[in-house]
């Protein structure tokens, strides 16, 4: 009897140890940051553009007393929230200068200059803008915020960046290229990259899962009329999609497939064979949102997050042509930006 208990106990310990090891591997196994570096280039551009557009009507949105959302209104809306924004402590007369400084920092983040610092600053800037004007924000700001946060955790400026270019130029000047490249390679395989990538992946799954589950609460997503209703919303419409009225089977099928895809995404995207298909469907969905509902920025931001699902090795393999193009057309770009050390 004691032997049986000992065996059960040993088996349990082994299982728990295996689970802990699997957990650790899943979240912390060192990973190449190339995917996140590509993502920084894309998200950086989007975040920079988003904030550039705020500048077109800066006074209208960010003035304390005579904007669409005055300080009094936003304070009342966020009364019981822990919302942070540096705009509350920025003097009114300095606001435009601070906005220009923010744009400069976001540009640095985009090109990967001092990325360890500018990525955190980009996150603070993104959430500060969004929390200052909560009634004018939408999905784009949510995705920008979470991308900046996870990119800040990882060494997102390790490749395809000003930082990497600068280090290599410095090494070239001192004749230390091979040693520096080896050292960079070793330092870039980090657990923080894996952690940030996994958190991004899990967060996207959470977003899609609840987007799908939320649709199940409505009648039109069940009877297939939802796509027609979305397409016929004149205020969202940027291209006419009312031609789908002639194909009821089409819009009804797409309505049902939308929530079915959203819910299944969180499970099927982890399967390596199905992952490309899930991502392709996602790109189609977001292309449709951009094309017909005018939300290119949101659609692109969601598509940019998909880069976190692409293995860095795949990026190297498939983007060889891009590298050659970079070599030929852009002489200042580091030759070994994608293939480190080669």
């Amino acid at each position, binding site marked *: 009897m004691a032997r049986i208990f000992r065996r059960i106990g040993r088996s349990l310990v082994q299982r728990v140890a295996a689970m802990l*090891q699997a*957990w*650790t*591997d899943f*979240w912390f*196994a*060192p990973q190449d940051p190339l995917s996140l570096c590509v993502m920084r280039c894309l998200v950086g551009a989007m975040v920079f*553009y988003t904030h550039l*557009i705020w500048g077109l*009507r800066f006074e*209208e949105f960010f003035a304390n007393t*005579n904007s*669409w*959302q*005055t300080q009094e*209104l936003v304070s*009342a809306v966020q009364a019981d*929230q*822990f*919302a*942070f924004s540096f705009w509350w402590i920025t003097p009114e007369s300095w606001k435009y200068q601070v906005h220009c400084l923010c744009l400069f920092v976001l540009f640095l983040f985009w090109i990967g200059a001092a990325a360890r610092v500018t990525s955190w600053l980009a996150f603070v800037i993104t*959430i500060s803008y969004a929390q200052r004007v909560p*009634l*004018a924000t*939408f999905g*784009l*700001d*949510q995705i920008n*915020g*979470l991308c900046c*946060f996870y990119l800040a955790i990882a060494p997102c400026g390790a490749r395809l960046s000003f930082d990497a270019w600068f280090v290599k130029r410095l090494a070239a000047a001192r004749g230390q290229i091979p040693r520096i490249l*080896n050292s960079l*390679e*070793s330092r870039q*395989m*980090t*657990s923080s990259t*894996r*952690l940030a990538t996994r958190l991004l992946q*899990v*967060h996207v799954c*959470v977003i899609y*899962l*609840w*987007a799908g589950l939320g649709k199940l*609460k*409505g009648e039109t*997503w069940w009877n297939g009329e*939802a796509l027609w*209703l*979305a397409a*016929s*919303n*004149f*205020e969202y*419409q*940027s291209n006419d999609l009312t031609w789908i*009225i002639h194909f009821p089977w089409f819009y009804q099928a797409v309505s049902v497939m939308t929530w079915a895809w959203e819910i299944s995404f969180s499970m099927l995207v982890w399967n390596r064979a199905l992952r490309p298909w899930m991502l392709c469907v996602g790109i189609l969905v977001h292309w449709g949102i951009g094309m017909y509902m*005018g939300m290119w*920025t949101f659609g692109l931001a969601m598509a940019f997050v998909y880069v976190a699902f692409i293995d860095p090795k795949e990026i190297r393999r498939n983007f060889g042509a891009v590298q050659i193009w970079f070599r030929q057309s852009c002489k200042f770009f580091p030759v070994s930006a994608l293939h480190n050390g080669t």
Partner: protein
Amino acid sequence: MDSSSCHASDSSCPQPRQSDHAAPEMTQPTKLNRRQPALRCAGFLLVNFWLIFHLLGIVLPPASVEPSPSSVRSTFWALRFYPQLLYMDHGYHFFSPDPGDSTLVRFVANSDTVDRAVRGRYPHKRIWPRLLYHRYFMLTESVPRFAELEPKLYELLSRCYAKRIAENHLCSSVELYRVTHHMTDANVFRAGRGLNDPETFDETRIGDFAWPGSFAASVGR
């Protein structure tokens, strides 16, 4: 956070496996590792606790959107500081439960000095670039939410919008209207009614606003 956050020989901490690309340097324990395995292990545990807390922080906000269990809502309320600080307290219920009607704001602005009224509506399709259009659209889409749930905030919101419109058009008084653009049913559309048919619009007066003036006396008149 580096992969060497736990000592390689410390069996009490699970070790991340080195991938194919792991450089030789990664597998060599540093001097700091040898000296402070307990500290590194504590750090590793802390990171794991944060990770679980963070996962809770991103799952609770959408899970607490009603209808949801009261226990989930109360847990979110207790831990809301974390997702709210990180701007991750979102429901992610895009176009759900059903795609709904749009809300616009129509205005008539009058000036004391010029005998001419400026009429307009937010948002309008001439606003460019499209991202800016969506900013205005989100402003007007907030109106019904406040009108139904937060009457006091609704008054404040209306006053802010009116003041801004007055400033944009250099006017001293503004009449505001909430315009609901109803969806066009597929069968009605087939019968020939357009998306912008006048019957699809429904208008409610928000109030008259003047500067200096009293908002409370004029609202809902």
